[in-house]
């Protein structure tokens, strides 16, 4: 792992540590007596703070997960080099696209 990926992984981990905590705390707080899909959407529609928070969460995931997966693949398989980097860059884009699409869908 080159130093830039190392820094990117650590920085995204800082974001994730906070984001996961907020995410879980929000779930525990909001669910309490049960929560329907309609009630969730009612809270998220047009809520810019919600959209920005989860967009940041998704971006951190898209940075963090492929770097970690790259390390695992390098250690456990003989896969190395450019094809590995390209595959994981595509995986990052996939996570980004799926995540941001979901955030957008519950925002609008």
């Amino acid at each position: 792992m080159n130093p830039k990926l190392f820094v990117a992984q650590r920085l995204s981990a800082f974001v994730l540590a906070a984001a996961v905590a907020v995410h879980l705390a929000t779930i525990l707080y909001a669910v309490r007596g049960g929560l329907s899909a309609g009630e969730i959407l009612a809270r998220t529609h047009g809520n810019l703070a919600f959209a920005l928070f989860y967009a940041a969460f998704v971006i951190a995931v898209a940075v963090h997960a492929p770097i970690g997966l790259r390390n695992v693949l390098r250690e456990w398989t003989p896969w190395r080099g450019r094809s590995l980097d390209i595959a994981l860059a595509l995986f990052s884009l996939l996570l980004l696209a799926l995540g941001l699409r979901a955030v957008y869908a519950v925002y609008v």
Partner: protein
Amino acid sequence: MTQSASALEIEVWRGAEEGSFQTFKTPRREHQTVLDVVTEIQREQDPTLSYRFACRVGICGSCAMVVNGRPRWTCRTRVSEVLENGNHIRLEPLRNLPIVKDLTVEMTAFFDKWKNARGYFEPGEKPAGDFAVVKPDSKKRRAVDESIECIGCGVCYSACDVVEWDKDYLGPAALNRAWTLVNDVRDQGNAARLDAISKSEGCQACHTHMNCTQFCPKGIAPTYSIAGLKRKVWWRAFWGIS
């Protein structure tokens, strides 16, 4: 007591990468070390047994082997410390290095990695004009003190899981040596050294399993040296500070 009636049962690896264990029986003696046992087998029972030693007192680091699954200096390991099932010991060559024969491994890769980690003093283009003043209680000097006593025995390298997964990983000993030089105020080669130890096979690959730290016969903690290197690499990549 010089000799006991109960014989030791010693399983010894014979061959190279392909091979098998051969069992020897030797007398149990008071205070005998595992190296004593190997020497006795070689001198009294099978002169073709290959192993390596020099000083016999924990200075040279050449007699390291895997004893009952754990890498150790055999000269500083008493038989009484490691016996299993009363009288059994299993001896293997160090792991993660090619086996030359029996208990002898080829250590070229291990020492090449010290070079690859630039684990040697770089005086710089111009020699220093005067003696460097290094206060013994300075932070850098204390960091050096904690990691300087390595004698290159290969025990940590044998114990390291990451070396086992990734044969290119520089390993605890080479990175530990790099850390002593990073903290050497006289050294002029840190930019190149930090480049060398922060590639894919460098310090960031360490999983902090701490096997090196657990098994180092000198009580060095290469894990902390590697953590120090990670911090250096982090600040250098983040702020350009080296």
